[in-house]
């Protein structure tokens, strides 16, 4: 039980601190701040643990943690944190599929035609922000009115081209 409770507690402490900070002011570099929070919390807890801050609690429940249990707790915590980060990355931007589901959810009785969906999903909403993101991240650049793939973008893309090749996926994403 100690692995489940400890791993979950560590995650909930990190999540609560992240939530409190976000309620005060959302940082501009939010992903980096989340990573720092989720790395620092277990390190702090481990430090307090080594300093004997949790001795009373552990002794009252006669808990002795083995090396395997500590490893298991951290593995559980890392998995929860990584998946949370993955979910968080998807929060600010809607994927087109989820946006279609949201739009259809708002029109439960009548549904939507393909023309109505085309009016909701436009280049300006879904493609332009992503193009701007690629420019901000220096994966592409705009010169003389043309978008050009940068070496950084080429290296980034090649990882996914390899994945497409080894998994026999269609060579055009989207």
């Amino acid at each position, binding site marked *: 039980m100690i692995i489940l409770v400890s791993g979950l507690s560590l995650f909930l402490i990190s999540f609560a601190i992240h939530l409190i900070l976000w309620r005060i002011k959302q940082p501009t570099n939010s992903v980096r701040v989340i990573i720092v929070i989720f790395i620092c919390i277990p390190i702090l807890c481990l430090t307090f643990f080594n300093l004997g801050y949790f001795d009373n609690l552990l002794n009252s429940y006669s808990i002795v943690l083995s090396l395997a249990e500590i490893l298991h707790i951290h593995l559980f915590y890392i998995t929860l944190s990584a998946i949370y980060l993955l979910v968080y990355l*998807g929060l600010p931007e809607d994927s087109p*599929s989820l946006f*279609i589901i*949201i739009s259809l959810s708002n029109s439960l009785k009548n549904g*939507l035609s393909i023309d109505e969906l085309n009016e909701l999903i436009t280049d300006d909403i879904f493609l332009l922000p992503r193009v701007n993101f690629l420019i901000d991240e220096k994966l592409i650049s705009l010169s003389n009115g043309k978008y050009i793939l940068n070496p950084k973008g080429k290296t980034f893309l090649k990882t996914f081209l390899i994945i497409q090749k080894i998994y026999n996926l269609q060579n055009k994403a989207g």
Partner: protein
Amino acid sequence: MLYTDIIHAVSPILFSVLFMLIHLLFANVYPSMGYFRTVKIAFSFSFFLQIGFESLFVIQSLNQLLDSISIVIVNIIIYCFIGLGYFSFINLAVSALRIRLLTELFNRPDGLTNAELFKKYNANEIVHRRIAKLGHNGQIINIDNRYHVQKSITLYMVIILEFLRVIILGNKIRIPISEIIHYIPPNIPNPRDHDN
């Protein structure tokens, strides 16, 4: 005992690696099955092996049943989450808009203007591809040329994501949750009904 415990702790990683290898094998041996089905088969196969392994562990430690069950829950969560992470990563190569934009520019080393880029890849294509995919997976349904949402994992995922957006980012909720919960999705009309 320590080594057994360590192996048990890392077992979800080992079964996840097995899942990835089986997926790779299926994707190459049976490419016609499609990406989503091969992932589902490989994930389920390794998941059942993991469950079998965990059952052996529970049987061996019946005197500490609650503890062993909690460890099994932890391992299953780790396995499922690694699987989800893997699926999301590979899915980027299948459906990410940014990857497609980069691919179009990769194919034209001299570059593309805004109009040329959006001629090659645009919102119209996105809508058609996503509608086809959602329809194929039973997440939406087409009745008389109007699309309706079906109750599916994706719909519940949308509800969870909306809740997280409200809690974390302080956004307003954009979907009628109570209506969705009580919603009875329409069925595909049976042609025989018209005959009668």
